[in-house]
Structure formats: C-alpha cells, structure tokens
C-alpha cells in the first residue's frame, strides 16, 4: 500500500487536523466524536444542514461545510458510516432552533446510524428531518433490497438545499427542495482501478490490465459488471444512456451536467468525458445550462468517473447559482 500517511488508524484524525488548519476561517473541527462545524455555527434563525458518512470521499462532506451549504459534516472511519453520538453532537452544535435537516446517503449503515441520532436528538427536543439520497442507477431498485446508493447527486443536493436554507426557507420547505432534487437527479459511475482502504492495505478488488468496472459506487465496491476496456465515447455512452433513460430525461429538458472524478483521474480525462457527454446530450435535445467537472465525491485514489444529471427548473438553477463559500465549492463571494 502506497500512501502519504503515518498510522492507518490515525489517517482521518490527522487529515482533519490539516483541514482545520487550512480552513480555520470557514470551519472549526471538534474531535472525539469528530465533527466539522461551520465556524459561525449555530447561525441564528437558519435551518441547519448536517450530512456525513464514511471518510475517503473528500471533499465530501467536510469540504462543503460553510456559508450556503452544510452547517456540519460528520466524518466516519474510512468508508464506515459515523456513529450516532457523532451525528448527535453535530446536530446539537448547529441547531439554532429552526430545525436540522439530515442529508443521508442511502447505505444501510448511514441510514441506521442517522436514524438513531435523530431519535436521540428528538429526545432533546431538536426538530430533525431526514432525506435519503439514492441516485445511483447502476443498482436495481426494489422494496425488497437495500435500494440504490447515494453518489454524485449528493453534492448537488447539499449545494441546493444549503442555498434554500441560506435564503431563509423553513425546515419543511428546505426538506421539500431536497426531495425535489432527489427526485430529479440520477448518476452512474465506472472505475479503471480499485482503491485501497488504509487500515486494510489491500486493493478493494483486482482488475486486469484491459478490464474496467461499470456501475461502481464510492466505496471501492466492485461494480455490477466487469467488461473489457473501451474508448471514452463508448464508456460515456453507456453511463449516460442509463442515467437518461432512468428518470427519464427528455428532449427540451434543462439540466446540470456533473462529471465527477473518483480521485485518481486526471482532469484532462474528466473534461474529455464531459465533452463527449455534452455531444450526446445535444443529439437528444437535452440542454445543459449548468456544469460541474472535477473530483467532488471520490473513492480515495480510485481512477474512474461518474456522470450525474440533474433536471433543473428556474428555482433549482437560482439556488445552484446562489453564493457558496466552502473549502471545495466557492462562488459569488
């Protein structure tokens, strides 16, 4: 295992120390339980947003704590959802009386731990609502299964719900906006290489020199199928058509196109993939009015990318454009 680390058990804590030092103007970090909180939290009168999950997806979620986005992030161990006490601590730290929205990615562990935390918070008379994002079309959905994973759409959800809270929406309205985003966003990803969890030291899977995984998540899980390497045109076609057909996105729709790197993919390749996606969408008459390209929700050093498409309307577009000031997303301020 090749990593710039000291002790595998201390990776998350040591990384948080660096993050706290680099962004002292934006956040304060508390340890044991570990939480990343807006420097000026709690923000009077504002609905507070809390998200979290296993670490290893940086900049998600800590990189999105700040004005116009999250009030707190709860980083678990690498790829392991945080414990209820940590989620509770974050919820208490940001609660300003206007209620707290938990943004939960749909993984059994995240859902169960946030559930427990919400119960504990309720016991302290903190009003908590939860939304569960499950935008990964690679996973077949059904009430008999764990359902779909929360992946790329999470970043867009946190930005847009954060903007709604920042403009003063109450808890019910922020929750409604969040649900609207969840209803209109779809994603799918692929990997050229696995990743290695520090405390395990072993690659999450092994791939031949000419193989790739289609339909991966963000935890180094193998994907739904392993296929021979293909040109970018075909890979993008595969991911994008699955995304487009699922909602479905239709000719005339206005969208936000998000091409996300899994952590180890050069920007050159991400923009190349973005260009291919734009061409294919144009052919289908689907308009792209907003874009995001880069490493925003990752899987350690994995090479690969995901495509996320969000159907926009005027309000969602305005909320996307609204000022945001976090370590990883910043504009308008």
């Amino acid at each position, binding site marked *: 295992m090749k990593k710039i680390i000291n002790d595998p058990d201390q990776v998350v804590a040591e990384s948080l120390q660096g993050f706290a030092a680099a962004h002292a103007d934006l956040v304060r970090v508390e340890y044991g339980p570990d939480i990343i909180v807006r420097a000026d939290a709690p923000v009077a009168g504002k609905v507070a947003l809390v998200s979290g999950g296993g670490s290893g997806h940086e900049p998600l979620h800590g990189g999105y704590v700040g004005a116009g986005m999250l009030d707190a992030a709860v980083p678990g161990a690498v790829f*392991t959802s945080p414990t*209820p006490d940590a989620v509770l601590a974050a919820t208490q730290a940001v609660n300003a009386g206007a209620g707290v929205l938990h943004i939960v990615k749909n993984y059994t562990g995240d859902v*169960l731990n946030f559930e427990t935390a919400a119960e504990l918070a309720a016991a302290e008379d903190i009003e908590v609502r939860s939304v569960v994002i499950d935008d990964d079309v690679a996973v077949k959905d059904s009430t008999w299964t764990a359902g779909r994973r929360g992946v790329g759409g999470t970043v867009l959800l946190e930005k847009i719900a954060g903007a709604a809270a920042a403009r003063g929406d109450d808890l019910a309205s922020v929750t409604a906006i969040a649900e609207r985003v969840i209803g209109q966003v779809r994603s799918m990803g692929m990997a050229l290489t696995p990743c290695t969890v520090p405390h395990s030291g072993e690659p999450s899977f092994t791939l031949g020199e000419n193989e790739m995984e289609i339909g991966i998540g963000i935890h180094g899980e*193998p994907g*739904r199928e392993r296929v021979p390497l293909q040109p970018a045109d075909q890979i993008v076609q595969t991911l994008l058509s699955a995304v487009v057909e699922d909602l479905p996105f239709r000719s005339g729709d206005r969208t936000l196109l998000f091409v996300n790197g899994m952590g180890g993919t050069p920007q050159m390749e991400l923009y190349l993939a973005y260009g291919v996606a734009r061409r294919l969408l144009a052919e289908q008459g689907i308009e792209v009015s907003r874009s995001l390209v880069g490493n925003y929700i990752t899987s350690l050093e994995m090479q690969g990318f995901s495509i996320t498409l969000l159907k926009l309307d005027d309000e969602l577009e305005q909320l996307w454009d609204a000022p945001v000031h976090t370590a990883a997303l910043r504009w308008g301020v």
Partner: protein
Amino acid sequence: MACTAADVVAAIRRAAAVIEQENVRLTDLDRAIGDGDHGANLNRGFKAVLAKLDETDPDTPAAALKLVATTLIFTVGGASGPLYGTAFLRAATAVGDAAELDAAAVRAALTAARDGVMSRGKAQPGDKTMVDALVPAAEAAEGDSPAAVVHAAATAAEQGAEATRPLVARKGRASYLGERSADHLDPGAVSTSLVLRALAG
C-alpha cells in the same frame, strides 16, 4: 448451573478475543462483496467493550449485555454497529434484571436479538445477511443449560452462515453487486456465528 453476570462478562471477553483473532478474515470477506471493513469495524467495537469492562463491573447479565450494546452502537458505525447493538440491547431487555440466567432466559434473549435485528434492518432469511445466522440460531436455541442453548445456537448459526454462500444479496452493500454477490460468504453472518460460538465457550 445457571449463568451469572460474571459468566456473561467472561463470555463477552471470549467473543472480543475471537473477533480480534478473525478480524482480518472478516474484512477480507467484506472486501469481496462489501467495502472491506467489517472485521475492522467489529474489532474497534469489541476492543472498546473490553476497555469498558476493565472500568466497570456489571452486576447483572442484563447490565453486561446493555454495556456491550451501547458500546458497539457508539464505536462501530457502519451497518453492523447499530444491528449488533440492537441485538444485544434487545437481549438485555429480554432477560430483565435477573441475577442469573437459566436456559429459558438465554433462549428468550436470542429470540429477542433476532427480532430486533430483523425489525431494524428489514432483512428476511435468504437476503444474505447476519439474519441468515440469527434465525436458525434462535430456532435451534434449545437445551437444559444456558451453555447448551448457546452451543446449539452457535452450531445452527455456523450452518446458516455457510449457507449464505450461494445466495444473491438483497440487503447491505453486497446487494449492489447483484448476481456477483453469489459464491461468497456473508461477513456479518460469519461474524455472528463466531460471536455465538465464543459466547458458548
């Protein structure tokens, strides 16, 4: 020969030792169809349990089980944390404040644990989860002594864990693999059988 708080604590210490021993194997199993952390997660939790047991000395079986439950819930994370936590919490509630557990109480505890995990995780038998170890364990939990009951449960759990191999997962991370989840053991079912065997002593 009933089972005292001290017996329960000793059993828990055995379980912690086994998880320490087997955590790499459990993580390997999880890497195949999950995200490669199950062993690390449980080991983190049971180490914390041992630490707790060094400070406090539970005076009833229920207190010991409750200590395990809360410690796992607050240190493990992941899916297995809340589920293992619920199992021990329900078991604690089931045995009430009795100073000693007889065979019937132990059987009741295992049944409550199974019901708790199933209601919390919504998994059915055959979904390729720890439920596939807990359900047969609870059913087989018969015997004229607490030890005998847990032994029977552990044996059934081991068979149940083994039987997860051909299954296609419908719950947990393994479900994301669809068909590809077959031909692998479910890590949580295996850890459940390991814990039960250790508790049996």
